[in-house]
C-alpha cells in the first residue's frame, strides 16, 4: 500500500526545500539591507519624495489625484538595488517547486491526498504560503516581503520535520472521505493566507511605530509606507476570512457525516470558531470609528496566535475527536 521509496524521495525534497529557503532568506535579508540603506539615503536627501520612492507598493498613494501612470518598477536606481531580492525570489520559486514535489511524492507514496496528519498539514500549509507569495510576486513587486515569508516557512518546515514527523501510511477510516480533501485543503490555504497576513500585520505595526517615533531603521525603510502596508494586510485578510468561513462550514458538513452531528464543541471546533470570531472582530474593528488601524491590526495578530494554538496546542494536549493519526 505504502511505497517507501517515494516517501523517502518526498523527505529528501522537503529537506532540499529547507536548504534553498534558507539561502533565499539570506538573499532577501541582503535585499532589505541594500534597499533600506538606499531608501534612507534618499529620504535624507529629498524628504518630500521619500514616500513615493521607497517602493512600488506605495505608488497608489502618490498617484491619487493625478492621471496615475506609475510603472511598477522605479527605473533608474532599480538595477543594482534589486539584485539580491531577485536572487531571493528565484530561490523562493525553486523552493516552491521543491516543496510541491515533496507534497506530491508524499501523496503518491500513500495513494491519497497528503492531508492526513500534522506533518502533512504543515508541509501543505507552507507549500500554499510559498505558492501564494510566488504568484503574488509575479504580479506585484513584493521583494521586500520575501524575508518575512521565507523565515516563517523555514521555521514551520523545521518544526514539522523535527516534532511532527509521521511515517507515510494509510488513513484511519474516519479520515477517509472526500471532505478530507475539501475541508483540509481550504483550511491549509486559509492558514497560509493568514500567515502572510500576520507577517504583514506585524510589519505594519513595526513600521507605524517607527514612523510615529520618527526613527525608521534600515530594514523598515525598504518597506512601503505604513498606511500602504495596512491596506495590503486588510486586503489579504478579506480573502482569507471567507476561506476560513468555508473551512468551518465544510468541517461541519463532514462532522455531520462522520460523527452524526455538525457541531459538538470539540476542542478543535471551539478553536476554529474562536479564530473565526477573532478575525471577524478584526474586520469589524477596522470599520469602527474609535478603533485605530493599529489597534485593529493587533486583533489580526491575535487571530494568528489562535491559529498557532489551534494547531500546536489543541492537537496535542486537548482530548477530542480531532486527536488523530498519531500526531
Amino acid at each position, binding site marked *: 500500500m505504502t511505497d517507501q521509496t517515494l516517501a523517502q524521495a518526498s523527505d529528501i525534497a522537503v529537506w532540499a526545500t529547507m536548504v534553498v529557503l534558507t539561502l533565499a532568506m539570506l538573499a532577501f535579508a541582503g535585499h532589505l539591507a541594500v534597499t533600506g540603506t538606499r531608501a534612507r539615503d534618499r529620504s535624507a536627501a529629498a524628504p518630500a519624495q521619500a514616500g513615493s520612492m521607497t517602493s512600488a507598493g506605495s505608488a497608489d498613494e502618490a498617484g491619487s489625484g493625478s492621471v*496615475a501612470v506609475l510603472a511598477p518598477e522605479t527605473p533608474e536606481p532599480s538595477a543594482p538595488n534589486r539584485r539580491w531580492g531577485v536572487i531571493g525570489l528565484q530561490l523562493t520559486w525553486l523552493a516552491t517547486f521543491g516543496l510541491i514535489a515533496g507534497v506530491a511524492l508524499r501523496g503518491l507514496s500513500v495513494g491519497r491526498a497528503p492531508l492526513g496528519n500534522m506533518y502533512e498539514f504543515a508541509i501543505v500549509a507552507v507549500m500554499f504560503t510559498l505558492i501564494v507569495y510566488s504568484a503574488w510576486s509575479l504580479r506585484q513587486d513584493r521583494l521586500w516581503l520575501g524575508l518575512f515569508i521565507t523565515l516563517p516557512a523555514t521555521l514551520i518546515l523545521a518544526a514539522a520535520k523535527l516534532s511532527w514527523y*509521521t511515517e507515510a501510511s494509510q488513513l484511519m477510516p474516519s479520515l477517509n472521505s472526500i471532505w478530507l480533501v475539501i475541508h483540509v485543503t481550504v483550511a491549509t490555504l486559509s492558514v497560509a493566507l493568514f500567515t502572510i497576513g500576520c507577517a504583514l500585520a506585524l510589519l505594519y505595526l513595526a513600521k507605524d511605530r517607527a514612523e510615529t517615533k520618527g526613527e525608521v531603521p534600515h530594514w523598515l525603510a525598504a518597506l512601503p509606507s505604513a498606511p500602504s502596508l495596512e491596506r495590503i494586510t486588510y486586503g489579504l485578510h478579506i480573502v482569507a476570512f471567507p476561506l476560513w468561513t468555508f473551512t468551518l462550514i465544510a468541517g461541519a458538513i463532514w462532522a455531520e457525516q462522520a460523527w452524526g452531528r455538525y457541531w459538538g464543541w470539540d*476542542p478543535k471546533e471551539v478553536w476554529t470558531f474562536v479564530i473565526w*470570531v477573532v478575525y471577524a472582530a478584526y474586520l469589524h474593528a477596522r470599520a469602527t470609528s474609535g478603533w485605530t488601524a493599529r489597534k485593529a491590526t493587533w486583533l489580526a495578530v491575535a487571530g494568528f496566535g489562535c491559529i498557532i494554538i489551534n494547531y500546536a496546542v489543541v492537537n496535542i494536549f486537548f*482530548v*477530542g475527536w480531532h486527536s488523530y493519526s498519531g500526531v
Partner: protein
Amino acid sequence: MTDTRKAPPQTSAQIRQPRLGLVGWLRWMWRQLTSMRTALMLLMLLAVAAVPGSIWPQRSVDPVRVTEYLRENPTTGEWLDRFGFFDVYSSPWFAAIYLLLMISLVGCIVPRAGQHWRTLRAQPPRAPRNLHRLEAHTRTRVDAPPEAVLEAARRVLGRRRLRIRAAEEGRELEIAAEGGYLRETGNLVFHISLLAVIVSVAVGHLWGWRGEIIVPEGETFTSQAARFDTLEAGPWVDENSIQPFSLRLDRLDVEFETQAGGAQFGAPRLFEGQFTTTDAPGAPEQRQVLGVNNPLHFGSTSVFLLGNGYAPVVTVTDSDGRSLGTFTAPFLPQDDTYTSTGAIKVPAADPQLGFYGAFLPTFGGFDEAAGPISTFPDLMDPRLALGVYEGTLFPGGRPQSVYTLDTAQMEQVTTTDGDVSRILLAPGETIELPGGRGTVSFDGVVRWGGLVVRHDPGRVPVLISSIVLLGGLIAMLTVKRRRVFVRVTDQGQATTDQGEATTDQGEGTADPGERHTGLTVAGLAKGSDPQLQDYLDALAEEITAAARTKDDA
C-alpha cells in the same frame, strides 16, 4: 455640605443637561447596545468565553471525563462546576453574551435594512460642483462632440451595471451614477443568515434527539425510545414519533494497520457493517452497507457507525449440566489495542452468578499493575479473563450498567485452597467453576458496532443558511460601492485650449473641423478602495474609445 463645595453646584446649574427620563435612558441603553463598539466588545468576549470549553472536559461532549476530573480535583472542580465550566456552552454567562450579541445584531440589521431599501429605490445623488476636489478623479480630452461623449459615458456606465441618475434640466453635461449596492445587500444577507443559523441550531436542539446503541453481529435493533442504551432528546421531542425502523448487523468488517510501525501500528484502517434493514415493521428488507463517513438514512433519521468492539459468547451451565443461558456480552474497549472490559450476568443461577473481567483480542500476558493486556486490536490470539462473583446481581432492583457488575451484595468465588477464582479462556475452551458451581464455556467472539441514531430537524436549515451566509460574506468583502461622476465641457473647434483642464495633444490641432470635449471622471468610494483611481482611469479610457467609435460610425 461645607463651604468649599458651594462653587461646583453653581457651575453645574449653568450647564445642566436635560433629564433623560425612563424612555430616554432606555433609548440610551439601546443605542449603546446596538453600537458597533459594544458589538465588537461582545464579539471578543464571545471568543474568550468559548475557550474554557476546550480546556476543561465538557458534560455535553464527554461526561465520564468530567466525573474523573471532579474526583481528581475535588476543590477546584467544585468551584469550576459552580461557575459552569463543565457546561460552558449552556452556561448562563455564555448565553448572556450570545443573546446580547444577537439583540445587538438585530438592532443593527433592522435600521440598516430600512435604509438600504430606501437607497435602492432612490436616485444616485447629484454630482458635486467641483469634481477635481474629489480625491480620485481623472481628466482627459476627447476628439468628439460633447453629446457623443455623454452618450458613450452612459453606455459604458450602463455596461458596468452602474445605476444612472435621471437627466435634469441645467445639468445636461453631467452624469451621476452609483454601483455596488450588492456590498450592503451582502452585508445584510450575511448578518441575517447568521441569525438564521442560530435559530436553526435552536430548532435542532428543541426537536432533535440522539440515541446510542450497541448492536452485536447477528442481532436486530428496532428503533424505539426504550430500546436505546442512551437517548438524549430535546425538550419538545415527542418520543412516540421516533420512526420504528429496524436493522440487523449481519457482519462487521474491521481492519487494522499491520504494515507501518510506530504510532501507526494497529491504527484502524476499515470499519464497515453489512446491515439488513426495514423502514418500518413489515416493510420489505433491504441490504445496506454502513461505514464511517457513510451513514444510513431512514426518513429524516440517520444512523452512524461510530464505534466497534468485541462481544464474547459465553455459555454457563449448572452443576447438573443444564444450560443457564448463552450470553453475547459486548465488552467496551479501553485503549487502542482493544483491551476491553465487560460483565456477564447469570440471573438464572442459584445463587446468582456474575462474571467481570477483560477480553483481550491479542493476549500479551499479565501486567503487574493493569492485569491482562492486549497487544494488538485485531483477533490474533483472543483470551477471556474473568473474575467470578456470587450473590445478588440487582440489589434493590435498581437499573445498572450492563458493562459493569454491582458487587455491593456479591462475593468473589474462591477455590478450595482459598485463592480468588480467576478464569482465563481461549475460544472453544470450557472450565469448571470451583465448588461444583457448574461450567463456563467461551464459545467464540463476535464483533459489535456502536451506532448513533440522530434526528435533527435543524440540520438542513443550518446548511442552507450557512451557504447563504458565505455568499453574503463574499459579496460584502469583494464588491465595491462606488459613486461615479462624469462631466463634459465643450471645448469647441480645437483652436482654443482650455489650459489647465486639458493635456496638450498635438493631434488635436491637426484637424480644425473636429470638435473637442473635456472629460472629467471622478469617484467616491465607501470604505477604503485602493483601486478606485485605476477604475476611474479605465472608465475614462473606455468612454474615450466608445465616443470615438461612435463618432467614426
